[in-house]
Structure formats: structure tokens, C-alpha cells
């Protein structure tokens, strides 16, 4: 009896549990090691951007979160539970391409998540529930700036419009974690900036944790509250697959929202909490 109050007191003092935890994760394809010794904790509501050379395993890390890849060793935890071996509605995903359904109008694309949740047998809502779903989907379309385009098919839209649609579609399912795999790659600068702002706005308004891969380092610092660089710490020139990549830099940016006033240089200077892994090896390639 005397232990209980003590326990509850301890619970109050504990920091909030991380949403996502990577515990010494290794990913291997046969002989090739893709990720090694990856340990990360991602706090609720953070916007993590992942950068690194191409082919280093950024997308693999996202696939671990989605459940398309299982770690060879270690665990990936979502809210303390291992993520399942398949995708689920608690983890939304947007890819570089192909994130929307070509045979559905914009409205149906967004309403699909509601259909799935509400109509396990027919796959589609009807009557008053359908009208409520349409209203919600329309509000979401308006939120991403596609109010007038509800009747368009994806093939009638631009790349940027399709990614806006994908955002609306993903967010209506209220995922706990949203995974973005280079969603703005290859877009024109102006369009890209608009979408960056949209992503930042959408993220801020809700209890959403975001993990985003980008090839644009400026974008990573502009959007992220935490920037993680993946790279190999060790290389074997005779066997490129011998060693895998891990988080070599971990910048936690001292601000609560993305798109802050900090320039990248200031952000780097304000870098806090270098990864504990840092002490294990001296600095290698940045």
C-alpha cells in the first residue's frame, strides 16, 4: 500500500513518453547492411526532417515506421508498442509520387479514409453519414487550397495539387505519425515554398508528429524542429554493403514551430544535444 503513492509521484516527474522509439535498429538485405545501431526517440508533436546522401536508407527508415520493413535487429515502437508488420491508420504516409488514387475524384480521395472507418462491408458511406463525410472532406479540401477542385481526377491536376490532395487525404484519417517521403522533390521553388508553408501550418494545428525525408537541406531546416542526418560512420571500400548508416547528426532546433525566423546557419549554431552516439566515434564524413 505504501508503494502506490510513491509510484504515482514518480509518474508525474517522468518526461512525456516518446511517440516513436527506435531501439538499436538494424536493417539488412542479405549481406547488405542498410541501417545499423539506429537509436532515436521522437517526442510528440515534433517535426523530424531526415537528410543524407541518396541511397543511404532514409526511405528505409520511413518504411520501418509505416510497417513495410521489419528490423533485422532491434525494435521500432509507436507509443511504447512495437509497430505492426503492416501499415495502419495510426501512421499516415505520403510518397514522392502515387499517393492518390487515380480513379477517384479529389473529394472521393479525401473521403476514402472516412469510408474505410465507417463502412467495413460496403467500403462506402451512404445517406446522412455520407453527407457528413462529404462535408468533412470538403472542409479538408478547402484547408489545403483545393476548394474548387473537388470534382477533378488526379490526372487533371498538377504535381503540387496532387500533393495537396495527398495531405488532405492523409490528415482526415487523423494519424498519430505522418510520414512524408520527399513529397516536394522536383517542384518549382515558388510552388515548393507554398507547399512548405502549407505543411507547416497543417502540422502546427494538431497533435501530429511528422517524419519527413527531403533532399533539400534548406527545406530540412526550414520545416523541421529536429534535423537528423543519416550517413555511414564506417566504410569498407572493398564491401560497400558491409556497414550501414545511422544518425550521424541530430540537431534539435530551439523552437516550437517550423518556418521560424532562424536561418540555417543560426540553426546550426544553436544546435543542442548532439546524439549520444557522437561520443562513440570521432566525426567522419558530414
Amino acid at each position, binding site marked *: 500500500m505504501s508503494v502506490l503513492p510513491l509510484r504515482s509521484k514518480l509518474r508525474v516527474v517522468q518526461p512525456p513518453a516518446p511517440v516513436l522509439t527506435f531501439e538499436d535498429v538494424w536493417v539488412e538485405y542479405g549481406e547488405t547492411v542498410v541501417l545499423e545501431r539506429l537509436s532515436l526517440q521522437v517526442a510528440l508533436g515534433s517535426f523530424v526532417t531526415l537528410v543524407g546522401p541518396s541511397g543511404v536508407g532514409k526511405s528505409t527508415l520511413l518504411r520501418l515506421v509505416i510497417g513495410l520493413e521489419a528490423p533485422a535487429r532491434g525494435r521500432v515502437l509507436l507509443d511504447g508498442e512495437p509497430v505492426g508488420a*503492416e501499415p495502419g*491508420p495510426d501512421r499516415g*504516409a505520403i510518397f514522392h509520387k502515387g*499517393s492518390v*488514387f*487515380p*480513379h477517384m475524384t479529389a473529394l472521393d480521395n479525401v473521403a*476514402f479514409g472516412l469510408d474505410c472507418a465507417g463502412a467495413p462491408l*460496403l*467500403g462506402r458511406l451512404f445517406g446522412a453519414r455520407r453527407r457528413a463525410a462529404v462535408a468533412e472532406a470538403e472542409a479538408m479540401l478547402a484547408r489545403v487550397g483545393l476548394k474548387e477542385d473537388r470534382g477533378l481526377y488526379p490526372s487533371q491536376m498538377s504535381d503540387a495539387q496532387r500533393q495537396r490532395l495527398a495531405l488532405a487525404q492523409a490528415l482526415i484519417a487523423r494519424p498519430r505519425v505522418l510520414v512524408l517521403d520527399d513529397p516536394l522533390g522536383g517542384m518549382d521553388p515558388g510552388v515548393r515554398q507554398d507547399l512548405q508553408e502549407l505543411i507547416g501550418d497543417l502540422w502546427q494545428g494538431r497533435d501530429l508528429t511528422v517524419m519527413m525525408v527531403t533532399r533539400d537541406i534548406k527545406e530540412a531546416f526550414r520545416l523541421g524542429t529536429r534535423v537528423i542526418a543519416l550517413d555511414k560512420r564506417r566504410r569498407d571500400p572493398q564491401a560497400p554493403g558491409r556497414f550501414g548508416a545511422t544518425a550521424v547528426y541530430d540537431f534539435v532546433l530551439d523552437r516550437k514551430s517550423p518556418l521560424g525566423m532562424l536561418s540555417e546557419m543560426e540553426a546550426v549554431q544553436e544546435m543542442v544535444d548532439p546524439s549520444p552516439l557522437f561520443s562513440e566515434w570521432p566525426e567522419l564524413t558530414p
Partner: protein
Amino acid sequence: MQRLMNLRPKGGARLLLGLLPILAVLLLYLGASAAWRIDGDPKSAILPPPTAMAGALLSLTSANPATGHAALLEDTALSLGRLFAALVIATAASLLMGLALGLLPFKRVAWGPLLRVVAAIPPIAILPVLCVAFGLGEGTKIALLVLGVAPLMIRDLAAHIAAIPEEQLVKAQTLGASTWQTALRIALPQALPRLIASVRASLGLAWVLLIATEALAADGGLGFRIFEAGRRMQMDVIIPYVAWISLLAVAADFILAQGSRRAFGWAHPAPKISRGASR
């Protein structure tokens, strides 16, 4: 001077260019028909003149006093009925099997090899088996058509479903879709336009099988009539029948193509890029 490959015919020129070869073939036929006669007798022509065909066509389309039906219409109804029944069965089978095979790896692994073997069998080769099993009635003909067409359609549709980008299937699951919901809302709608294309592609084979089975085991139908007429050297019957079949096939293809465009506009996006300036 533009390159030849960038020159495009427009409006009236298109129509004229399309008509010219047809006219040329008709003229060639008329010439051959006049030249190629046994003892110069128009009645025994190997390539009968249009007048003879018109006469035969008139008698084929007017009601036979004995039966009260016109032979051509009766044959057409019989043949199209068989074709339609077989295609409905084949389409339903390919939709069910194609969806299951395309979406479920377990099904694919289990049924793929069998289907591969069945699809490789020349359908006509099993006609005797079908005759023994189903007799000489309608069952045999429809079964032959189904067995000939369905395996190809199933495999085509399964391959199409399996080729749906992984992103879409993952996306559906991240939105909470079950296997059933994914099949119903993602795979099925994307299968339908492909199914129509698959039916269009299979129509040619279906016609071949239909004519063949009617020639071998039937007492009515377009194929039956053609082979009957062949035994009596009635070229003036055969040629209008062949032309009629070709017309039916073209019409069926056109209707399917238009239906697909109308019902599944998303699957037929307007072409965006044209080579060169097309003024």
C-alpha cells in the same frame, strides 16, 4: 517543308484517305469477280458479282415460308447469344479470379501455375472432350468459348491488378482500408476499364472459336451457315455472311470502346503532348 512524319491529315482528307483503300479493295474485287468465272457463267462465279450477292442477301433476310424466320437474323441471334453468354461467364470469372489472384499473393501462388498451363492449351484441342462431356448442345459451344477466352482474361486482369503501384496499396492501408475494402474500392474500379479492354482483345479469339464450333457441331448460327454454304459452293452466301460478321465485330468493339470512355473517363486521359505543330 515539314518532315513527312510531322505531316498530319485533317478533316476531309482523313475521311478520303480512309475510304480510298476500301474503294480500291472493292474495285479489285469487281475486277476479279468479272475475270474469274467458270465457263463465263455469272452464277458459278468463285467471286460472285454484287448482283448475285444482293439476290442471296434478299432471300436470307426475308422470312423463310417454312419456318417464318429470316435465315440471317436467326443465325445472328443464335451466334450472338452464344457469344454473349460465353463472354458474360468469362468476364465474371476473370473479374473474380483476376481480383483475387492480383491482390492476394496466396491465391497467386496457388492458382498461377494451373492457370498458366490451362491458358496454354489450344482450346479447339479439347473440343472432343467437351462434346463427350456436354453433348452436342449449346453447353459445348459456350464451354469451349469460355475455356478459350477466360484463362487469358484472368491472367491479363491479375497482371493488371498486381501492377497497381505499391504506393496505392500502402496508402489505402494507412487510411485504414482492410483487404476487402481495398479490393472493393481500389482494385475493382481500376480493374473494370482493363476488363473492357480485355474483352475487346478477346473478341477476336471468341469469334474464331465460335465459328469453328458452329462449323463442327451445330444446326444453326453464322458459322454453321457459312460452312453449309461452303459445301454447296454458295460464295454469294458466304461473302455477305463474312462481311456481316466483320461488321458485327467492329460494332461490338466500337460500343465497348465508347462505353469504357464514357464510364471510366479517368482511365482515358486526353493526350497532352503532340509531336510537332499540328495546325
